[in-house]
């Protein structure tokens, strides 16, 4: 939970907020018992999630918008294929699921920039770039032009580029786990 809190907080507030919560957890543990204190601590940490999610997603508004768009497209493609059940729909369901999962993974990475999540997200970008290329190539060689596929392929490619841009600009999270006291102002 402390590690989750570290990931949720900005560099500026990391030590001070965790310090406040740790101090109160200790006081509660002495007063009401360890289990009560741990449950309280977990709930307090979780209370940061919605605020951090809104703040970080609005900070990366363009990437968030592309993720929401591709997630909606993926869900729509999946629902349509499931309803129509044309030959080979199982494979296309997998593609739709991949698109949705990658969008959700990218949004999770924005909220919780843990190393594992970043690596998975970057690996996922390779998958969506490949899907975008495959879709674009398929449309170009198909006599029946499907404009919406080109649009989704373009959105996936932009999402991948923006994801790399955001990850490369983020500071490594490993350094923030040290318990150093910030300099006095």
């Amino acid at each position, binding site marked *: 939970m402390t590690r989750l809190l570290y990931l949720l907080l900005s560099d500026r507030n990391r030590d*001070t907020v965790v*310090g406040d919560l740790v*101090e*109160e957890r200790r006081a509660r543990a002495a007063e009401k018992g360890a289990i009560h204190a741990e449950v309280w601590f977990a709930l307090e940490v979780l209370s940061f999630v919605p605020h*951090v999610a809104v703040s970080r997603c609005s900070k990366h508004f363009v990437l968030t918008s592309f993720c929401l768009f591709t997630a909606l497209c993926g869900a729509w493609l999946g629902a349509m294929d499931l309803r129509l059940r044309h030959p080979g729909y199982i494979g296309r369901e997998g593609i739709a699921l991949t698109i949705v999962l990658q969008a959700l993974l990218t949004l999770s990475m924005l909220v919780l920039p843990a190393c594992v999540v970043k690596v998975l997200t970057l690996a996922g970008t390779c998958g969506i770039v490949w899907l975008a290329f495959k879709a674009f190539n398929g449309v170009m060689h198909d006599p029946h032009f499907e404009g919406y596929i080109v649009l989704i392929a373009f959105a996936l490619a932009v999402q991948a580029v923006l994801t790399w841009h955001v990850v490369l600009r983020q500071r490594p999270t490993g350094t923030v786990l040290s318990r150093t006291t910030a300099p*006095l102002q």
Partner: protein
Amino acid sequence: MAELLGTFEQIILLAVMTLEEDAYGRSVLRESQASGASERTMAAGAVYSTLDRLEEKGYLVSRLEAGMPERGGRARRFYRLTANGVVALNETRRTLVRIWRGKQRKLKTWSPSKYIGEA
């Protein structure tokens, strides 16, 4: 003219003002809840993010103090109300008083059911 403050921002600024030199994240949360300003339990995340936002706006300033052993040596951030914060609080209060002037009596006697079906 200072920006008008939201209800939660007012609660936090007033808590910082009340606590004077002892205003840090948890004490602000406790004071805000104790003041009875909100009937619901306040989320710690909301309080800390509001403190940050108010500091960015220049209504609060903060200083760090060295951490105690019970905090694992982590620093504590204390907040103080600035002159801009006082202006914003006064401005907001004046605006609310102006908006409410003469409306309170009407609200007391207001009966929505009286107007149902008149349109």
